[in-house]
């Protein structure tokens, strides 16, 4: 099985939020970046499928130079090789534009993949669409919020999470695109051997210009959807902050719960 996993580098969960001078994103100075959480689960599912059925796991990511580090981490966990679409201005693309780049780079692969996996949504923009858009561009069937993947005679059988604790099985022919929900497997850590091996694994770098050269349809159209401005959220409720030492704050809260909320 050849599996491509589309991964994204995102600001780490506890990153400090300061709006940048243009008011369109956060100030990235001094910020650490991580692999997007549900993409980490997508990678894990891919690695387990490879362990069970053999084949190859290729990770693909778009973004500036620093994205190379996240690709190396995926290689250290066991992916066989990487594709890095180099771009310093991804923010000027909408979701369709980014998915076009990923799809174009996947189409350049010498051998077609059986599966394309990605996380169900990114922890930063949270659009939850890139995988599905890629499926439509590539003309492939897709399924979202997937927890388990089994290989069958004709394709795959997957477990899809529905709302309120419900689930459903689906059967799809391959090739197919799946977006992976977190939680099915424990994520693996890179071993020392893995980290060492990752240094010698191939990372193919492609530029947006290369992709356009090979397929003029990739040329970025004007975005349909534009992020105009970011703002700190406004409060939905008035919060009484209870200060002091832990025991003082605790005593104050108990008093509120007793006399204001009348819950004790």
């Amino acid at each position, binding site marked *: 099985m050849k599996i491509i996993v589309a991964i994204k580098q995102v*600001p780490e*969960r506890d990153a400090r*939020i300061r709006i940048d001078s243009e008011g369109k994103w*956060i100030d990235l100075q001094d910020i650490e970046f991580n692999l997007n959480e549900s993409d980490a689960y997508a990678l894990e599912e891919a690695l387990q499928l490879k362990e069970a059925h053999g084949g190859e796991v290729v990770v693909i990511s778009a973004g500036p130079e620093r994205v190379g580090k996240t690709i190396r981490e995926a290689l250290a966990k066991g992916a066989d090789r990487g594709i890095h679409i180099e771009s310093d201005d991804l923010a000027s693309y909408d*979701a*369709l534009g980014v998915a076009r780049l990923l799809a174009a780079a996947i189409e350049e692969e010498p051998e077609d993949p059986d599966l394309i996996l990605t996380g*169900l949504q990114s*922890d*930063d923009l*949270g659009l*939850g*669409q890139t995988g*599905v*858009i890629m499926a*439509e561009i590539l003309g492939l*069937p*897709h*399924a*979202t*919020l997937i927890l388990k993947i089994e290989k069958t005679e004709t394709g795959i059988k997957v477990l899809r*999470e*529905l*709302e*309120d*604790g*419900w*689930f*459903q*099985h*689906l*059967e799809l022919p391959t090739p197919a695109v799946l977006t992976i929900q*977190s*939680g099915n497997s424990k994520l693996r850590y890179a071993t020392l051997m893995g980290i060492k091996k990752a240094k010698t694994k191939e990372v193919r770098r492609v530029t947006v210009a290369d992709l356009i050269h090979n397929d003029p349809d990739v040329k970025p159209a*004007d*975005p*349909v*959807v534009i*992020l*105009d*401005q*970011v*703002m700190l*959220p406004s*409060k*939905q*409720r008035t*919060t*009484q*902050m*209870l*200060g002091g030492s*832990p*025991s003082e*704050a*605790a*005593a104050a*809260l*108990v008093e509120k*719960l007793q006399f204001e*909320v009348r819950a004790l």
Partner: protein
Amino acid sequence: MSSVLVILEIKDRIISRISWEAMAAAHTLAEGRGLPVDIAVVTSPTNPILAKIQGKPPRTIYAVDHKLLHAYTSDGYAEACAQLIAHVKPAYVILPHTYQVRDFAPRLATRLKQVLISDVTGIETHAGASVAPTFIRQLLQGKLNARYSHTGTGVCLLSIQAGAFRADAPEASATTVEPFLPKLEAAQIRIQPGEPFRASAQTVDLGSATILVSVGRGIKEEANLPIVQELATALGAELAASRPICDAGWLPMERQVGSSGQTVAPKVYLAVGISGAIQHLVGMKGSQCIVAINKDENAPIFEVADYGIVGDLFEVVPALTAAVRKVKG
């Protein structure tokens, strides 16, 4: 004449509450733009639920009907909705942000060379029809809001977050139901869906608890769970959790609150070490009183909290347990 088209979702044989919230969002937009509202439901034109419309009556109700749509598939819904949009020619398409919409709407938008503006929490219409409306959605797990606009002359697709708009009360209406029969062929449906099922019998009913103590990533390790369990016991509360705790297997999935777990509205919801990602907030923001204990004063959970304590949960929670025991004797 162009319109705002709302595609409603049926769940458990009724039109879901989040669909009516999307309908309320559609009316907000339609009034600002001076457009009529049409609605569409994938069902038989004779389904009696089409007679019970919440909020102002739409211009037309389209009953989108085909035997290949009886079981949901992304292929079937994307194609049927694309044909409906080509027929109705709306300026805006509004959908509830459900798992089903997340599954097919991005494909539908791509087919129309558009991008779905997903999980919208606010719609701003501006005076004058020449000024385009703007849409608010959350970034970075709710730590930031963003204002988006749609450009070009094509249809603009939006999905609306649960709880972001208040569903309108039902109004008597006599809207005509118009059947819309898309042209679908079995070969277009590449996916074979199985029957939905529940994983196991639920043994915990978080919905009936008066007080919930809910724990998140801040607890750091499974071995630390007893400190929140002790607080829950002292309060006579049920223990709940955010998704990462259940993903890690530290608590069973049935204790999970949020979009993929249970939706709760207890008298008191005490969030311990929960940052308040959107997916969690949609499951609990209807609680009567929300208490948040978190080390990060900028955590989004404080935006919905009535009472907040910024501090180390490993110090605050035991102190709180002791204080509760003292008053409860």
